């Protein structure tokens, strides 16, 4: 179980409890279920234009995944449903992975299809969007203390992709934005995990993103984990992010532009994300629960040079429901 509290400088506050259940029926068959709720209180510019006192909303999301092992191959099939006031999403997904080279190399791939239905509030009209997403990754053990992963992701999104709440200044008139009806996204990633002396571990992640809206971004994340005792783990990390703007983004528009937007996610900006996490797993279980139970506390702070700022707090509880073994 986890509880997340998100608040940002756009006036949005989101409280999100989530529950994850994992069950291994045999050593080859497993099931994972997840349910979460986002309780959203929004006083952002997109809501405050009509709701000066802010607007409350809620999003419920549930997912189910079945995993089956066939020797060194693992196959997963699953789905996810989410529903909120003005958006519904249905996703089917599958993934497969295989261990090679005596378990030192793992090749994995996956595909998902999403059918999304945004409602053009305050109108009752519902639009449609179709998203195909695929990835391929290779994870390899370089040494007794080093693991690397190379990944490639591809996504094709067709259908309605405007933001029905944000209006762009066109000829000095605030006008509902209009984006292209197709978007192709690609990512390349390189990740490293390195075990260091004195119960310390280093992590480095790099992701390069590009799409046909001409948004290019780089994200570099570095982190350090350390066991103060075998029961108490601390992690600190920093993520640096930089993106260009969409080819059709301008602060304001004149004439009769085909595409125009004021979506804050499509402007060029840099950002930094600081995070700190503590994980405590007592030897005899937490608060009388089974051995293996533990608690996680995390704080994140996101700051962009566009003036956007967000703080996120997470508290998590892990409780083995079956026979727990001391970790």
């Amino acid at each position, binding site marked *: 179980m986890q509880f997340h509290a998100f608040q940002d400088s756009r006036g949005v506050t989101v409280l999100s409890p989530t529950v994850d259940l994992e069950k291994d029926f045999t050593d080859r068959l497993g099931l994972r279920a997840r349910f979460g709720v986002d309780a959203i209180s929004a006083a952002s510019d997109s809501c405050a234009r009509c709701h000066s006192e802010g607007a409350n909303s809620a999003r419920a999301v549930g997912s189910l995944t079945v995993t089956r092992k066939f020797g060194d191959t693992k196959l997963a099939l699953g789905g996810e449903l*989410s529903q909120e006031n003005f958006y519904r*999403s249905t996703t089917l997904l599958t993934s497969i992975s295989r261990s090679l080279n005596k378990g030192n190399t793992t090749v994995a791939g996956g595909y998902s299809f999403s059918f999304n239905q945004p409602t053009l509030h305050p109108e009752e009209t519902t639009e449609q969007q179709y998203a195909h997403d695929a990835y391929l990754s290779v994870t*390899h053990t370089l040494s007794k203390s080093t693991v690397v992963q190379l990944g490639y992701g591809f996504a094709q999104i067709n259908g309605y992709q405007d933001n029905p709440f944000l209006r762009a200044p066109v000829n000095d008139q605030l006008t509902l934005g209009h984006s292209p009806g197709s978007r192709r996204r*690609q990512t390349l990633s390189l990740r490293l995990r390195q075990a260091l002396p004195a119960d310390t*571990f280093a992590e480095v992640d790099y992701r390069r993103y590009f799409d046909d809206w001409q948004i290019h971004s780089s994200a570099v994340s570095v982190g350090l984990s350390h066991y103060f005792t075998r029961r108490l783990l601390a992690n600190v990390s920093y993520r640096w992010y930089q993106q260009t703007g969409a080819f059709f983004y301008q602060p304001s528009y004149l004439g009769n532009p085909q595409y125009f937007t004021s979506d804050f996610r499509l402007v060029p900006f840099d950002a930094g994300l600081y995070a700190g996490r503590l994980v405590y797993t007592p030897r005899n279980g937490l608060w009388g629960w089974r051995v293996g139970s533990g608690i996680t506390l995390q704080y994140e702070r996101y700051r962009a040079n566009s003036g956007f700022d967000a703080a996120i707090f997470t508290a998590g509880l892990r409780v083995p429901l079956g026979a727990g073994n001391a970790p």
Partner: protein
Amino acid sequence: MSMLKRAAALCGLLVSGLLLSACATVKPWQRARLADPCMVFDEDASLAGYRAHWLEAREGSAGGSGVQGGGCGCK
């Protein structure tokens, strides 16, 4: 990125995988530190998934962590 470049990138990824598989093999009794949760990518999948969710709602890019869910109407 053209189809040809995308295919080349994919082939490069697969070739890299094959080349890496030729590296020295770590024996099972040498994998003690590799079994630590800190050496597992996205060991806490729920935490990683939540971060990816709110980052996608606030940035113009997404992906790089497996297949995605259906997104949201986050504004």
